[in-house]
C-alpha cells in the first residue's frame, strides 16, 4: 500500500484519537457516577434531573450532540456568563467540544450501567460501614466503588468501544484525528479507498488493543474472586 508519505500524519491522527477517547472517557465516567447517584437519590428533583439527562442524551444522535456542543456552546456559555455580569466571548475548540460531547454521551449510558451495579452492593455493607463510623465519602470510596467497578467494567468496556468509534465524528468539526487526516490525504492524492481503508484498519487495530486491555482490566478487577472459586 503506497501512502504517499502520509503515514506519519495518520499516526499523529491516531495519537489524537486516543487522546480524545481517554479525555472523553474520564469526563464520561465522572458524569456516569454523578448520574447514577442522582438517579438513585432520595430527592425527587435529583432523580428527575438524572432521568432527563439520560433520556435526552441517549435519544439524540452523537453527531448532533457534537454539532450542538461545537456550534452552540459559545452562545450558551455566553448567556450563562452574562447572568453573572461577565461579557466575554468563550469558544470551545474542536478537542474540548469533542471531549464534552462524547463525555456527555458516554456518561448517559454509563449512568445506567453504574445504577445497575449500585444495586448489587448489599445494603448491609453500607450499614456496616456507617456503624464503623465511616463518612459518606469514605464509605463510597472504600466500600462501594471497588465493588461497583468490578460489576460495571464489562458494560463500561462496551461503551468505551462505542466511544472509540464515535471519535471519528469529531472530524466533522475539524479535529485532526484519524478521519480528518485521511480526508486531507485523500484531497491530496485522490485515492479515497486507500486512505479510508487505512483508517478502517487503524480503528480495527485500536479496537483489538482496547479489547485486550479491557480483558486485562477485568482479570485484575476479578482477582479477589478467582481464588475463592478454585
Amino acid at each position, binding site marked *: 500500500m503506497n501512502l504517499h508519505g502520509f503515514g506519519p500524519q495518520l499516526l499523529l491522527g491516531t495519537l489524537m484519537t486516543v487522546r480524545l477517547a481517554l479525555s472523553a472517557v474520564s469526563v464520561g465516567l465522572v458524569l456516569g457516577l454523578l448520574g447514577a447517584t442522582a438517579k438513585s437519590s432520595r430527592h425527587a428533583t435529583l432523580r428527575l434531573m438524572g432521568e432527563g439527562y439520560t*433520556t*435526552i442524551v441517549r*435519544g*439524540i*444522535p*452523537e*453527531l*448532533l450532540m457534537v*454539532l*450542538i456542543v461545537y*456550534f*452552540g456552546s459559545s*452562545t*450558551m456559555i455566553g*448567556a450563562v456568563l452574562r447572568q453573572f455580569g461577565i461579557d466575554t466571548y468563550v469558544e470551545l475548540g474542536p478537542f474540548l467540544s469533542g471531549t464534552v460531547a462524547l463525555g456527555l454521551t458516554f456518561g448517559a449510558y454509563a449512568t445506567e450501567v453504574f445504577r445497575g451495579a449500585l444495586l448489587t452492593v448489599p445494603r448491609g455493607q453500607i450499614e456496616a460501614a456507617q456503624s464503623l463510623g465511616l463518612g459518606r465519602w469514605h464509605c463510597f470510596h472504600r466500600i462501594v466503588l471497588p465493588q461497583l467497578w468490578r460489576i460495571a467494567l464489562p458494560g463500561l468496556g462496551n461503551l468505551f468501544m462505542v466511544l472509540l*468509534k*464515535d*471519535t*471519528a*465524528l469529531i*472530524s*466533522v468539526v475539524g479535529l485532526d484525528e484519524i*478521519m480528518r487526516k*485521511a480526508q486531507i490525504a*485523500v484531497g491530496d492524492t*485522490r*485515492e*479515497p*479507498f*486507500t486512505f*479510508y*481503508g487505512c*483508517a*478502517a484498519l487503524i*480503528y*480495527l487495530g485500536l*479496537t*483489538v488493543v482496547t479489547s485486550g486491555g479491557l480483558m486485562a482490566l477485568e482479570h485484575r478487577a476479578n482477582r479477589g474472586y478467582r481464588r475463592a472459586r478454585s
Partner: protein
Amino acid sequence: MSFDSGVIVDTFPKLLTGAVLTVQLVALSGLGGLALAFPIGIARSSRRPWVRALPWCYIFFFRGTPLLVQLFLVYYGLSQFSSIRHSELLWPYLRDPYWCALIAMSMNTAAYIAEILRGALQAVPRGEIEAAIAVGMSKTQILRRILVPRAVRIGLPAYSNEVILMLKGSALASTITLLELTGMARTIIAETYMPVEIFLAAGACYLAISFLMVRTFKLVENILNRHLRHAR
C-alpha cells in the same frame, strides 16, 4: 439567552421533510440489514469452522470500525476504481449518496443484527429442537418452523435497540450531502445563523421518532407473544 422560538416555527416544515428522509433511511436499512443478517447469522452459528470464518470476518470488520469510515469507503472510496466508475450497472447507484448511505447502513446494521440473531438462535431451548427431530422434521423444516420463529421472538427487544442506534447513525448520512434531519438542520443554520434553536428542534424530532419507534416495537412484541399472555 435570546431564544428565538419563531425561527423554529418558520423552519419546521423543512425540518419535517428531513425527518421523513431520516425515517425512510432507517426503515429501508433496517429491512436491508435484516435480510443480510439472516444468512450471516445462520452461517455464524454453524458448527463447521470454515462456514463460520467468513461471517466472523464480516462482523469483526463492521463492528470494529466507525460507521463514518464505512460510509466514506462506499461513497468516496469505491470511486477510486475505474472499473466501478465505468460500470453501467453499479455506477448510477454508487454515485448517489442516498444509495450509498443505504448500502453502508444496511451492511453495518447487518453485522450487529447477525450477532443478535446468533445469540437468539443459541437461546432456543435444546429440548424444542430435539422434539422437532423426534417428530421427524427435516433440517430446513426445523429452521423454518422452530428455530427462526423462536429466535425472532427472543431477539426482537435487542433488534429494536439496534434500530434506535441506526436512527442515531442515520445522522451521519448528512456528511455525504444527504439532507436528512441533521443535514437539513445544518442547511437551515447556514441560512439563519441560529444553531442552538435549530439543533435543539432537530434533537426534539429525533426524540419523538425514537419514542414512536419504541412504542411500535412494543406493539409488535405484544402481537408476536400473544400466545404467552393467557399462560400468565
